[in-house]
């Protein structure tokens, strides 16, 4: 009876046998890393907007406070997006004919809001509230990064649950005095962990268990 396989078949088979676990583990590891890559998280990827609004120019260049546009950030869950009228407080006076602002003028004329591309989006089942974070002393920069250095806005952090929990487990690492929340340049004067712990007590953060409980964010 003729042989079915050539003598090399054994070597081939053994090679496959040895490689399979590595390939399998490698593939799983690749999938795992993919979750943290910009393809998946959009971190550091500038998003196209209907109007190329530059935070760098408006915040760092002109010194406009975050709350001038994001008006409800201290009082409500949603930070608020400025209406076109807000833009027009200045742009009815300067750059009135700039082609780059045509969309804003059109929006004001037609009374239809500009459809910005959302950069920071958490899942619907997450009850994120801006106001409580502001009141307890979490700076804008902790989540949004140096917005004052972004010509076009991008995500500075993944907004993944594991990332949320890192901070909820160690709030002292991120807390700052209430007055410095909107200061993107603020640096702790002493040891952040020591100061942060004091601030956490002052702000009335009761226990870690309470803020890492499922129902803190999922209701």
């Amino acid at each position, binding site marked *: 009876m003729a042989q079915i396989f050539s003598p090399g078949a054994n070597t081939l088979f053994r090679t496959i046998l040895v490689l399979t676990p590595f390939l399998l583990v490698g593939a799983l590891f690749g999938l795992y890393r993919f979750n943290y890559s910009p393809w998946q998280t959009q971190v550091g990827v500038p998003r196209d907007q209907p109007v190329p609004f530059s935070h760098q120019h408006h915040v760092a260049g002109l010194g406009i406070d975050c709350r001038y546009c994001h008006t409800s950030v201290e009082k409500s869950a949603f930070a608020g997006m400025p209406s076109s009228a807000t833009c027009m407080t200045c742009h009815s006076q300067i750059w009135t004919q700039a082609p780059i602002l045509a969309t804003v003028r059109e929006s004001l004329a037609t009374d239809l809001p500009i459809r910005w591309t959302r950069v920071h989006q958490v899942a619907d089942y997450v009850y994120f509230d801006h106001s409580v974070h502001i009141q307890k002393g979490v700076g804008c920069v902790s989540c949004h990064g140096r917005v004052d250095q972004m010509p076009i806005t991008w995500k500075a952090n993944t907004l993944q649950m*594991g990332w949320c929990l890192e901070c909820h487990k160690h709030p002292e690492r991120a807390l700052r005095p209430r007055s410095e929340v909107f200061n993107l340049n603020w640096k702790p004067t002493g040891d952040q962990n020591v100061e942060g712990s004091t601030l956490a007590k002052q702000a009335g953060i009761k226990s870690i268990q309470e803020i890492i409980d499922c129902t803190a964010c999922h209701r």
Partner: protein
Amino acid sequence: MSSPKLVEDKVVESSNSSHVLVSPDETLESASAKISSIVLERKHPPFWWVSFAIAFALLMGLLYGITILFAIGVGIWGIDIPVAWGFAIVNFVWWIGIGHAGTFISAILLLLLQKWRNSINRLAEAMTLFAVACAGLFPLLHLGRPWTFFWILPYPNTMGLWPQFRSPLVWDVFAVCTYFTVSLIFWYIGLIPDLATMRDRARTRLSKVGFGIISLGWRGSAIHWKHFQTVYLILAGLSTPLVLSVHSVVSTDFAVANIPGWHTTIFPPFFVAGAIYSGFAMVLNIMIPLRYVYRLESVITERHLNCMAGVMFATGLMVGYGYIMETFTGWYSGDIYEQYLVINRAIGPYGWTYWLLLLVNIVIPQALWFRRIRSNPVSLFCVALSVNVGMWLERFVIIIVSLHRDFLTSSWGIYAPTGWDWLILFGSVGLFVSLVFLFVRFLPMIPMSEIKEIVAEREEEAA
């Protein structure tokens, strides 16, 4: 196997034809030829095509049901509060129970040197794998968001979370996955010598190469056999505790909860007995028709049927004891909720399911006291069918009746399955039967090597 021959075998084989493990007409050559030709040569009988077509149609029904389920959600089922565990969990426990016979036959009976396991272990193991596959489907389908099923596994994830290790539902995942993996390896290792026989008898290039690859270069040398038997025994040792642990873990899904009728310590052994009971019933339901259609009476003899009927009957009596104890404990607990459950089971809105359960699961199998019933394939098939229905009903009674009326009368409710529930139940039967028929078509369903071993031992003795 090199296991010592049982004294009983010697005595009875010569005295009574109904005790023979392999018909005296079979030789080494005829056994191989008969079994391998089912896969390699013989045209498949109309029985195969018709049964496969029906099973495949049901399987398509299952896929349709799952598609709609994924698109719309679990609301298409009859589940609601208070009965949030409906058919999906009933079916899960039923299938996983059915998946217990294979490993019992392969592992425990091997260690107990029961030679009658040899002709039937392959089919029983295959059936186990398919039943566990069906079982595995249901907990996933029953998740509200089935596409996130892998969250139950402990893996590094972006949420920074572990599964809840204190929950029996997580233990389930480990128990079922371990069981499936070990059963698969056990089944495959056992197949290797037969796959080599198939390779050697194959006619076409495709089947030669295919069987050649999966037989891993088996040549049947003495050293091969030595390694084979060592591995096989080790695997038997590994799987033996699994036969007992898997359904024990499944039973803790219920026993850990404080629902009346669930919170009892008898559950693990009670569930294991029920699992082996339904497992053997399903083996009989599959094996009896196949034995008839493929003329396998010479290797699956009356003795095999009789032995399987015996195990089924013994475990059935244990299950009966379980029912008595459930009722007794309910009364003896002194707890009004447990006591009410016992009454509600018998005369509540689902009372008829309880009485039907006692009829098909306890009363009808009493026929097995009679040798004539045990040795007649048709009557045995009917009893086994009744047991399979009974074991499904048992899970229905445990789950639905306990849930629909618990502590607060204000939260009582009624559960009624919808058409989708039934479609998915029968669809899963279609999946199971389709897999069994594909297995019969493409792999040797009887272990040729083990049959030949018995024939060889007999020839040696005669010489």
